[in-house]
């Protein structure tokens, strides 16, 4: 067993070998590169669903705009003050830094959890794309609140798309990444064009004189759809903040910011947040209101921007599912003995396709995004404590690395314990991660400090 684990750990290390060393000074990137990267990364297929769900959850226009403004600001500040400073000091990916802190065993568990979560996310993107392709074949989209597939046609559609996405991910991840660069500015325009073209259907006058009135009475009118919770300012603020929780507070974007010249480059994430997680969400809200509040991203885009809109939804799903499948494959590669890349991507694609058949993942996307961030958040707290708090309290850092532990059991217990406490909290799912972060930070520090004394 010990030998088997050592073998897995060694294989995992080989996979990430290329980024084992801290980034050299001559490889650092300019701020413009970061701005471009974030601007292109945060306009995905899921944006069509998220903004529309805010409308269905009965948020008011004022709460939406203020919530997105401040929530995205908190997200940018989280990247700037939590993630980027650790990245520029260590110049390491989370994989290698977590390995020093928590040992290869915990890192392996993190990888597997991440792979599974990536597959669900890619599955949701396939489902969103299927709503677009379904229009072509006249296949009904599952209704709001559905958990299981509604028809054989839907399942077949998902299988066709899943097979196509997986095959293309196997054939050429690099080429598709380049194609995604071509798509991203245009996809962003599909949101803008769709929303502008939907305004006349909602009765907005050409002089925009009644824009606010239409926004508050016909779009974000404060009335939740049947079966949907009512959202307010705090729900929106927290959602915008935790939407990329695994990346900023969870520190997985150490992989990007290790190339930053200064920690202040975290501020460049605003180029992704405000166009993608504010403007695009507002636009999809306008589009869903124009089709009578039906959760059907394909129909929203078709009504607003014709077949180009349908292509926009399809391509947004494809270009974002592709790197997600790739990352899932990379994470899974650690537990698949000597499998070639194509076989692992095929496995990840098959799992993703099966998950995508269940519409619950895209129809409960907001909850899933919350759970995704929540599950990985304690790891960020553990790394933050080890990096900043331990030196202040004179607690020995990197004990797992120094003593050759496969598992830092304290880290694992804090991770699982924090999640158990979070899931039992009697507050809305969206708000649980924040006290959870505090619990993980304090409990890991206290437990590691008490270990020193014993």
């Amino acid at each position, binding site marked *: 067993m010990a030998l088997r684990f050592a073998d897995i750990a060694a294989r995992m290390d080989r996979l990430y070998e290329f980024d084992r060393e801290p980034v050299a000074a001559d490889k650092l990137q300019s701020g413009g590169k970061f701005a471009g990267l974030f601007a292109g990364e945060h306009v995905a297929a899921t944006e069509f669903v998220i903004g529309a769900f805010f409308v269905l959850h009965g948020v008011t226009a004022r709460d939406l705009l203020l919530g997105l403004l401040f929530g995205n600001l908190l997200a940018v500040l989280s990247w700037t003050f939590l993630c980027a400073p650790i990245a520029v000091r260590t110049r390491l990916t989370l994989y290698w830094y977590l390995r020093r802190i928590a040992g290869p065993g915990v890192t392996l568990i993190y990888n597997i959890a991440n792979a599974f979560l990536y597959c669900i996310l890619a599955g949701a993107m396939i489902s969103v794309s299927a709503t677009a392709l379904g229009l072509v074949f006249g296949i009904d989209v599952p209704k709001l609140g559905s958990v299981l597939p509604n028809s054989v046609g839907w399942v077949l559609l998902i299988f066709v798309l899943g097979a196509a996405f997986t095959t293309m991910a196997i054939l050429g991840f690099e080429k598709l990444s380049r194609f995604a660069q071509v798509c991203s500015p245009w996809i962003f325009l599909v949101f803008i*064009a769709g929303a502008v073209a939907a305004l006349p259907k909602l009765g907005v006058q050409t002089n925009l004189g009644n824009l606010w009135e239409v926004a508050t009475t016909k779009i974000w009118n404060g009335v939740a759809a049947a079966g949907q919770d009512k959202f307010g300012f705090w729900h929106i603020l927290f959602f915008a903040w935790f939407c990329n929780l695994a990346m900023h507070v969870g520190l997985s974007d150490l992989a990007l910011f290790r190339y930053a010249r200064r920690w202040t480059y975290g501020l460049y994430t605003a180029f992704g947040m405000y166009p993608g997680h504010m403007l695009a969400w507002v636009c999809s809200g306008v589009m869903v209101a124009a089709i009578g509040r039906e959760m059907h991203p394909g129909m929203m885009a078709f009504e607003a921007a014709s077949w180009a809109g349908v292509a926009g939804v399809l391509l947004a799903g494809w270009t974002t599912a592709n790197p997600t499948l790739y990352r899932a494959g990379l994470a899974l590669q650690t537990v698949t003995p000597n499998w070639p890349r194509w076989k692992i991507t095929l496995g990840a694609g098959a799992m993703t396709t099966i998950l995508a058949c269940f519409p619950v993942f895209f129809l409960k996307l907001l909850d899933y995004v919350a759970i995704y961030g929540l599950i990985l958040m304690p790891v960020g707290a553990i790394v933050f404590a080890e990096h900043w708090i331990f030196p202040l309290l004179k607690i020995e850092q990197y004990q797992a690395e120094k003593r050759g532990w496969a598992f830092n059991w304290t880290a694992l217990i804090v991770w699982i314990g924090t999640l158990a406490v979070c899931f039992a909290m009697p507050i809305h799912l969206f708000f649980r991660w924040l006290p959870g972060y505090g619990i993980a930070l304090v409990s890991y520090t206290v437990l590691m400090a008490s270990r020193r004394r014993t």
Partner: protein
Amino acid sequence: MIKRLFWLGALLSLGICLAVPVLYFAGTMNEGGYKLAFNLASAGWFVFASLWLMKRR
């Protein structure tokens, strides 16, 4: 030279994609015209941007 033309074509297509919904909203274009122009400009963007990217590499 040809690279610059592709770049200009891509930029123009993107500009049309942005302009036509505004014209439709302003009432100077009908819905059918807007959708046709948006579809064509979108196709133009993919053609020119891909060619520009290929030339750049």
